[in-house]
């Protein structure tokens, strides 16, 4: 059987307004760092998006993650719905004290909203390939993806070349990419609802409320949430610093180690760079 994503992993569920949400937690017990909560993106899950980041961070601190879950019978899922699932897990596992929150892709929209509404809890915030407001480029890209749903092979190919960075794709075969990208998680219905949510994201009003020490991570070759969105976050969030990593949107599969170590370094010392800094990418 499949092995757990981290040593001594604890799995459980909480009930959020009638929906059962699964969580995972593990990590160093006596750490001085606040626990970090991971929020995955569209078509992802804890395992699907964080099988590298989770165990890496767990070496230094407690890590909490959840699988965002469909709300059966509710045709439209909102950012607030997902935020409530995060709150349900956080309140159950870490009822008090400071926490760090990391969101990836759509998860970073949820993370930013959660941080805006819980400024007393969220001490540090990491937004990976996130955005504030959906724009034309994203809408048109989604239109084309949706139009291809009838042709699964073509849809898959388009998704892969959109997800991975151009230089990464150039050096691999289609088969390579298929082995690197795990199959989508969450079920078709839920993915459909999240895709709809992706089209109407607008958390502009939350930006001013975010008080956390924030790291914005943009991906140089991102075609799904291009880097100008991360730069917009960098401008909008007061106490933020920005770094850009040489990856496509699928950084959790394409450059997981670089991502995990950038996050590890930030969480170990969030104020190492003052607000407004551009943190240069490491040149090994």
């Amino acid at each position, binding site marked *: 059987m499949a092995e*757990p994503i*981290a040593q001594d992993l604890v799995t459980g569920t909480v009930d959020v307004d009638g929906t059962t949400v699964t969580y995972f937690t593990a990590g160093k017990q006596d750490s001085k760092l606040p626990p970090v909560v991971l929020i995955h993106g569209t078509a992802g899950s804890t395992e699907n998006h964080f*099988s590298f980041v989770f165990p890496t961070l767990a070496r230094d601190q407690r890590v909490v993650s959840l699988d965002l879950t469909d709300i059966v019978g509710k045709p439209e899922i909102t950012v607030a719905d997902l935020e409530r699932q995060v709150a349900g897990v956080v309140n159950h596992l870490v009822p008090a004290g400071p926490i760090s929150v990391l969101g990836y892709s759509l998860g970073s929209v949820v993370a930013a909203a959660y941080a805006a509404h819980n400024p007393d809890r969220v001490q540090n915030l990491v937004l990976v390939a996130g955005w504030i407001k959906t724009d034309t480029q994203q809408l048109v890209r989604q239109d084309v993806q949706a139009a291809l749903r009838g042709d699964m092979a073509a849809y898959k190919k388009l998704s892969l070349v959109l997800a991975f960075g151009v230089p990464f794709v150039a050096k691999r075969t289609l088969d390579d990419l298929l082995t690197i990208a795990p199959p989508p998680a969450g079920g078709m219905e839920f993915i459909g609802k999240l895709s709809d949510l992706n089209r109407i994201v607008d958390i502009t009003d939350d930006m001013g409320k975010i008080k956390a020490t924030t790291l914005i991570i943009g991906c140089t070759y991102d075609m799904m949430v291009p880097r100008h969105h991360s730069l917009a976050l960098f401008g909008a969030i007061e106490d933020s610093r920005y770094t850009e990593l*040489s990856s496509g949107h699928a950084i959790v599969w394409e450059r997981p*180690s670089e991502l995990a170590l950038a996050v590890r370094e930030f969480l170990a010392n969030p104020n190492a760079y003052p607000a407004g800094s551009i943190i240069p990418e490491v*040149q090994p």
Partner: protein
Amino acid sequence: MSQSQTHNVTDVEVLAIGAGFTGIGLGIKLTRQGFHDFVILEREGDVGGTWRDNTYPGVACDVPAHLYSFSFKLNPNWSKIQAPGGEIWDYLRDCVTDEGFWDNIRLNTDVTRARWNEDSKRWFVETTNGTWSAKFLVTACGHLSDTRTPEIDGLDTFPGDIFHTARWNHNIPLEGKRIALVGTGASAVQVFPELQAIAESVVLFQRSAPYFFIPSGKHQAFTDAQRRLFARYPQAMRDIRSEIFWYSEGNFPPRVQVPKLLEKARNASLKYLQESIADPELRAKLTPNYEIGCKRILGPGRFYATILQDNVTLEASALTRVDGSSVYGANGDGYEVDVIVFATGFDATEPKFASIIFGVGGQTLADSWKDGMKATASISTPGFPNLFITNGPNTSLGHNSAVYIIESQIDYIIDTLNYVNTHHVERIETTPESEQEYVDSVAARAVGSVWLAGGCNNWYVDRRTQRLTVSWPDFAYQFRQENAKFNPTDYVLESVF
């Protein structure tokens, strides 16, 4: 450098022992800073270290050369992803020539003793070629430079030729010979296909089966066009470096208790074995009986394809006895051979240089390390002031480039030299507390790792104490984060005034 009249001792600010990647990298950095008061002593007749000594057929780096080279001295001309050893040797010689510090190197100068003198606060370094005194001493002797050959019963009765991969004798032709190849480590798997191609027969003595990375399917050789692009647009080389570096870092977590990633790595390697070897009996012999990563995971090359050749026999046990020209495995089976090739590696846990370094009160480094190597920031140890140890305790990587670690240690040394110059410090000695804190922090990270718990005998763990003393149990990146800068609070500093 100045010659003091009375003792015929040459004074120098910084003295490094060894002219491999470490000594040469340090030489480049010092020279570029405009600091010329240093000397590098090298026992052999040329620079190059590992890459001068290892000239066996098929020798190459297994970390791609664009990463396995200095970040401050990129080379657009590597012929292959895994460059042949000779190219790396040339690269290192070119480094010295380009940067112009041949005059700071003394070849054929074997250091026999280095003694700390408290009165003058200097190291006195005796060699086969003169005596030096230095304010700072750097051991850049390598951790894979003193060869290890197992004690084999009756080896002295063997009438044929005996080779170690790191001391190849190119004067003895091997065409048509019957060869015993001992070992299945990194060197063995490189030399094996080369020997098979020319020998009458090869019997491979395998004490334990290796795991392999799955082949990348990438074309090995760079084209002229690619090389010209690298020269014209160096960022292309930096992009490759980053790509390989982060890919390699991705191979670290399986070594430290990440069940899912460990399973994934193991399954990939075993699938490659399955696809390569159809015969179940042979496959069983080639299936490792320990956890992946406990020993070095090897580059795939042509190992399995070579095993399948008609003139090859796999002896799945250690070579234990020699009787004349008969060599016997632990299983009792004997083979007639003309040549024995030892690909049995090096002494890394108890480095030889440790017994020639005498610190405060005349104790040797080997004494101080009788329970295993240890050092603050992997570089300095109490009782040995003004000494930098490179490639020593907890510096080895199973998953990424050694040169990355070497550069971090060079940065540490340069940073220290700059600090002591600006602050007029004459003597630095790390405290036992700082060393213990570092040792504990490393040990905590090693708990449950594949090196300690993977069920194999490896050269990363000190056999005397079962402590992980050779490997660095974290990401390479983290080594540089922690250990590339001088931290004065780890030291007692004595100023000139």
